[in-house]
Structures are given as C-alpha cells and as structure tokens.
C-alpha cells in the first residue's frame, strides 16, 4: 500500500498541440479511494494509463510511495488494473486468468492456487474457476477482472470505468461491492468514471477533470457543497445546479427583479458586473406568483419520493456543457399537486446560493 502523487504530470498525444492531461497535481493518500470524473475526452483514462505505465509521461512526475515511477515499465510499478472491457484472456479459464500474474511472478503452484481460491471466494467465483470467460455473464466477467486485480495485493488499484458494461441494477449492486471490498483491503485505488453518481457514492475524494485540467479535488460533500467553479457546479449533482446570470447593482446581485445580497469580499473578488447565481433544485422555496422569480411549470417529473418541476423563466442562464440552457429545475415534495402551465414564484433559500464570477467562472468567497 502506498500513496500516489502526480506532480505537474502532462501528456501530449502525437499530432495534437493541446495536452490530453495538463500539469496535473494530485496527491492520493495511502488506502484512499479516489475517483477521477469528468466528461468524455477530458483525460481520465490518460491519467490512469500514465499511472499504470501504459502511456508515456511528457512532463512532470508520478510517484508511488517514495518511488519515482515516471519512467518505469508497468510490471515494476506493482499496480493492478481493471479495464473497461475487462480484457480477460479468452483462452484461459477463470482460475488461470486470476492466477496469471502469480504464475509469471513464479509463485509456487500450491500457494498460487490457494491465493486464487481465496480471491475467488471473496468474489463469489468459486464455482466458475474452470470456465472460460466467454461462458460467463457480464457481471461475472467483471468480478473475474476484479479478482485478477485483488489476487496480487498490489500497492495501487487502477480501474477504468469497470462498471460501464453492466446494466443499471447490477451497476448499483457492484458499485457498493467494489467500494466495500476496497475499504476492506485498504488498497489505494484510483477509479475512473464519467458517471457523477458513481463518483459521489464511491469515492473518499473525487477529482473533477475538464479538458485535461484538474478543476477540483475534494470529498463528495465538499464538491457538492462548495463547487470551486462553474464547471464543477454544473457537473456535480443531478438534476444539475441551476446557474442564472445576474448583474451587480449596489450591494447585491439582481436576478429578474430579485436581489441576492453580496458580501464586501464577494464584491471585491468580482472582475466584472456579471455574476452567476447557482441554486440547486432543492435550494428553492416555491412561493405564490409575484414573489421572487416568476416561473411557469413546463414539465412535472414525479419520482414518488420527490417531484421535479422544470420551469421556464425569463432569466438568462449558463450552460456548462455548451448546450442550450435547460429550464430551471425545482424540487418539490413527492406527490405535490403541481400541473403543467401553473405559474409560481421562486425564491432561493438563504444559504443555498452559490455565487460565481461570470467572467472567470471562479467561485466567489463565502
């Protein structure tokens, strides 16, 4: 077990002047479960593959524990990896797949077999040890891939979207299994996903990447409660945070007639008159029309325990992923009597407002 640290780690791909991962600084504590999350193409896999030694490092360093592994080949790094497509050896049985590393490491056959059986028992694969991967279900294959990683007791686990080939229900089950297994084994783990729910439920800390740049690395609560910039604010949370453009007038920000107070520190930090007000769906108070921001219910999404109202307003909004801004999402108690077309007023709950500088995207001091 060991810490992992990236220092200024940079990766360019041939023919592309923009680095896929740009000056990544990240410290992962011993035994920590760190999730790398971000939209497609942001450099998550590249980061993981650099750590595994499958991709060269063009700048900066990577350390595992005290060792500088930047230029070491994969086999000298003592890491195990779970691939998205599992990459099981199709001509080997489950047992041989799990024991392949031990065999290469020249471990005695009896010890190897007992280690394999132990790992298989841990993952409920004992009955399948003699089968070929082709005759397993997706979930079982996923567990074999896990088995191949845990049997080595490596210093670091790397996992690249290991659940993305499973159906929704199995994914939720396996998610908790992996998380609890990792806590039990205490092996430092870097886990890549593009699913922010997976990230928030599994990770001790979550690192958000965008275009090869680290946006924020924090606990799920920290990320959710204090997003460092507009991108993180819009990326984490489902439905996403509503990001509304306001203008500074005097001591407060003006949004469609409603005033949101700004502290002197916030006003000092602003680089322009434009401010973005972020309110999560659960951060709204629903009032009678005429109070707060006037809105019209467009869609009612009933989930039983909660209800989400998607409302149109005359405010202008920011879209993080570049698409058309979505309607404002508002959470109401489940089974509320709201109907399409109804008018209401929205007032942010005090303390549920996130403020960002519209020009830089950075969070304003609280």
């Amino acid at each position, binding site marked *: 077990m060991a810490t992992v640290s990236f220092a200024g780690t940079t990766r360019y791909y041939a023919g592309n002047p923009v680095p896929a991962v740009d000056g990544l600084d990240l410290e992962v504590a011993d035994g920590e479960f760190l999730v790398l999350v971000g939209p497609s193409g942001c450099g998550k896999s590249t980061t993981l593959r650099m750590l595994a030694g499958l991709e060269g490092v063009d700048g900066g360093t990577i350390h595992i524990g005290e060792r500088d592994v930047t230029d070491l080949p*994969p*086999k000298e790094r003592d890491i195990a*990896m779970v691939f998205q497509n599992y990459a*099981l*050896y*199709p001509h080997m049985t489950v047992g041989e797949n799990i024991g392949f590393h031990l065999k290469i490491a020249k471990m005695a056959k009896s010890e190897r077999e007992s280690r394999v059986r132990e790992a298989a028992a841990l993952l409920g694969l004992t009955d399948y040890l003699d089968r070929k991967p082709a005759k397993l279900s997706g979930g079982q294959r996923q567990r074999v891939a896990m088995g191949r990683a845990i049997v080595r007791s490596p210093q670091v686990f790397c996992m690249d979207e290991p659940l993305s080939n499973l159906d929704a229900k199995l994914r939720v089950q396996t998610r908790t299994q992996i998380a609890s297994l990792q806590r039990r084994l205490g092996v430092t783990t870097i886990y890549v996903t593009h699913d922010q729910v997976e990230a928030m439920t599994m990770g001790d800390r979550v690192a958000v990447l965008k275009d090869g740049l680290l946006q924020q690395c924090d606990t799920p609560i920290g990320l959710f409660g204090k997003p460092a910039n507009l991108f993180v604010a819009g990326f984490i949370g489902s439905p996403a945070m509503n990001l509304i453009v306001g203008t500074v007038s005097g001591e407060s920000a003006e949004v469609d007639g409603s005033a949101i107070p700004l502290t002197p520190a916030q006003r000092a930090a602003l680089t322009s008159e434009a401010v973005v007000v972020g309110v999560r769906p659960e951060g709204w108070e629903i009032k009678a029309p005429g109070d707060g921001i006037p809105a019209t219910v467009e869609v009612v999404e009933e989930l039983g325990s909660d209800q989400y109202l998607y409302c149109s307003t005359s405010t202008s909004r920011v879209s993080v992923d570049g698409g058309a801004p979505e309607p404002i999402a508002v959470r109401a108690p489940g089974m509320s009597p709201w109907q399409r077309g109804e008018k209401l007023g929205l007032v942010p709950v005090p303390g549920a407002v996130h403020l960002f500088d519209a020009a830089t995207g950075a969070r304003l001091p609280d």
Partner: protein
Amino acid sequence: MTSTVDERLGGPVRKPPRKPKPAPTARGFSPLRALGMAVVWLFTALNVLVLYWLVMAAFKSPIEIFTKPFALPSYWIERGQAFRNLAYAWNNAGFGRAFVITVVLVAVSSVAIVLLAAPAAYALTRLGVRGANGLTNFVAIGMGIPFQTVVIPLFIGMAELDLTNNLFGLFLIYVALSLPFTVFLLTGFFRSLPDELEEAAAIDGASPARTFFTIMLPLARGGLITALILNAIGLWNETLLSIVFLNENANFTLARALFAFNSAASYQSEYGGLVAGVAIVVLPMLVLYVLLARRIITGLTLGAGK
C-alpha cells in the same frame, strides 16, 4: 407475466415456420442476384464436372477415356482390376518415395514459414516498431512479384551455393517465396486482436516474448492454422520450382515425379495411368480442403472485421 407462461405451457405446441422469413430487403427478384447465382452455379458445376471426369478417368482404359469421357468406367472393372491404373501410376512414377518426400518437405516448409512469419507479423503490428507500416508494405511488395520472373537468377544464386538438386535448397526457396504472403496474412490477424489484452499482460508482468507466446499466439491460432493450410496446399501443388531445381529421381516431389511420369506415360499411351497419377497428387489436398474449408474461410475473413 406468470399468466403468459402458463398459457404457453398449457396451450397447443407452437410450430416455428419451416423457413424463417427473409428480411424485406432480401425479397423480390433482383437481376444482379440472379446473374450472381447463375455464375456461381455454373462455376460450381464446371468444377464438379472436371473433378468427376478426373476421378472416373483414373479407372478407365485409354479408349474409354477418349470415346466415352463422361460414362462410368467399365473396362478394368470387368476384368477385376479396378485399381489397375492407380497401381500402375504408383509403381511406375516413383510416387512412393515422392509421396514421403513431399509430405515431409511440405510439412516442414509450412511450419517453418509460419514460425518465421508469425513473430514478424507480430512485431510489425504490435510492438510499435519504428517504420512498421513502411516495412509491412515492403513485405507486401514481395507478393506482387511473380516468382516465375526470379527463377533464373534464383537458380544461378543457388547453384553458386551448391544448393541445386537439393531438397534443403528447395526448402529454403519455398520458405523465402512464401513469407511475404504469410506475413501479410498474419498482420491482418494480429491487428484484429484487442490492444487491451496486451496491456493487461504487461500489467500482469509478462515480457513481450511471453505475451506473444502465451497470449497472442493462442488467440491467433485460427490465423496460424489458416496460414499453415494455405501454404501446405500451395507447396503441395508447386511444380515449376521443383522442375527447375530438382533433376534426380531420388529427390523428386510428387508434382515433379508427375511431370516426369507425364512424358513417359504419354509416350506409352498410358492415359489411364497418367490420369490416375494426377488423381493421386490432387486428391489428398482436395480432401484436406473439404475437411478444413470452413476453418480456412473464417480465417481469411477474420481480419476484415473491425
């Protein structure tokens, strides 16, 4: 849910249609399809006819061959000597020894070709060797050179080395001339194997050599077998080089022996024996091909996906 299951179990047994309905696109008459079918069937019929003629003629007397080319054989059968032609060819053409030589030469050459071509193809596609694409194309150029054009320089070169009229010399030539095609065929296979397996093996600590032998080779088995069979068939039938390079009966391969037998048998008007000789040379490969056709075809198209 349960009610449907019960209904199905208790209800009358449903019979699937005898022939599943084709997709709408495949239905209806298409002139191209009709033409294609006609050509395919014509080609097949022609081949079957030639094969039929060959097998029948191997049991006929010369007169029967020329007067009743498509009738069933009768002359030798009536005389109780049905296999007389085959025996004649076998005894007079020196096929016994040639058969052993050919089997050994073809087997050893095919295996050697694949043993050399597989690592080469692996290195060209998988190891990220600098200039691998150019090298692959360079190897492929070898396929474009008809070997007939290099026979004479080859002969002169081999004579310098004292390797003419020598089975080892022929073995070298066979291997050298078959490598371009085989390397090219196998690069297709290795290219179609997923990258992740190699990466997984690297992380498991396997060296490139070990990865090649324990992961890639077993996975490319289909391709290797295809390459082996195609080479075996090609070399079995190879005549020109064996005529040029072998001139002593003791060294003759089947095709070479057949060529020598051809002049002798036609001089004596032993056409039945001659055809029987051809049949002895051709049929083993035909049987091999029929047995392995499915395997070869999947092998040839495997690299085409992805």
